[in-house]
């Protein structure tokens, strides 16, 4: 019975309400807010924010962010092509190393 009681007390935390109370500067968004700019996603666990402070800059899939594929920029595209071609050319060498490691490796 005691553990069930604790679980009910934790319920608002699991739902994210506790986090909202602690950080009123990032209110929970609703569909009616009609957001056009990128917004901080409300995370229910405050410890995540402490552990990964730069998480927001790593989230490319949120609203308003530009796409991050290598072909978006010419410089990144040409660098990728150059590196991938070198890697493809060296494949027989890599396969030799893997074969040796797999058959006779320590």
């Amino acid at each position, binding site marked *: 019975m005691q553990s069930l009681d604790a679980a009910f007390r934790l319920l608002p935390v699991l739902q994210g309400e506790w986090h909202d109370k602690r950080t009123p500067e990032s209110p929970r968004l609703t569909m009616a807010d009609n957001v056009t700019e990128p917004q901080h996603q409300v995370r229910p666990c405050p410890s995540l924010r402490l552990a990964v402070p730069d998480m927001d800059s790593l989230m490319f899939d949120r609203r308003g962010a530009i796409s991050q594929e290598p072909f978006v920029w010419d*410089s*990144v595209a*040409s*660098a990728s092509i*150059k*590196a*991938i*071609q*070198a890697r*493809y*050319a*060296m*494949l*027989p*060498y*890599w*396969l*030799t*190393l*893997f*074969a*040796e*490691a*797999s*058959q*006779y*490796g*320590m």
Partner: protein
Amino acid sequence: MSGSGIDGPKMSKNSGYIYIADTLPSPPVRALFYEFDDPSLYSNDVQFLVGSSVLVTSVLQPNESTTTGIFPSADGTTWTDWWTHQKVDTSKSDNVTLDLPLGEIGVHVRSGSVLLLHADPGYTLTETREGGYEVLVVLDGKGYAEGTAKVDDGVSLPGMRTATFKTLLPPWYTLWSGLSGLEVPVSHLKTLTAVSVGDQTCLNFTATNFSCLNSSPTGSYNLQQPLTKITILGVTSQPSGASLNGQDVSGVEYKAETEEVVLSGLNGDLNQAWELKWW
């Protein structure tokens, strides 16, 4: 046998551990001190070797376009840039600063090595594999180089051992052996065997005396793609002619700046032994 563990850093081609280095290979990606017997390399955590022949040096600091790496040259080793085929100048010091703007990676090939490559990297791996092969030779100071390449179909398992696993014993095994005290005949046990055991061919390349490159294949895998290009780096004088298996080769190109001989437009069969000579 002292080849592993504490003697690991000594397993270099050049320090008398040839047998061990050949029979118990190091990991595919290794640190520099695996190949060069120099305690100052123990702290090098910015470079790595792919196999024994390719050294990768990359810029690890943000907003920088140069990086300093160690290019060991004590035993006469030289390093040639993968992209430009220029030799790294280690005459003053082994610590060399490379100019690597954004998008460039430092890749250098060790002297004395022969690499089998895909000649025409394509858009996909299938296209790449359907193209021909290239042999890249980087001669050392004595005109010698060696290398092996193991080629198979890339799918089948090469020579997997037949093994018996306890989980594959028949369900009546415990009851049978418990009651009778007899072993189950081996022929009644299920064994795990490879579904298909693939063929493999090992190509052994040797270049000698600034004048000769040999290939001797062993194994039963049939390479379908031809040898279309041979690049030899470290040839100090322009050759006046070249022959492949005794037949003269016409398209010999020499670049004096990079000491490079390029034979392109070949149609060689890698399944047969061949010999390239130039003079």
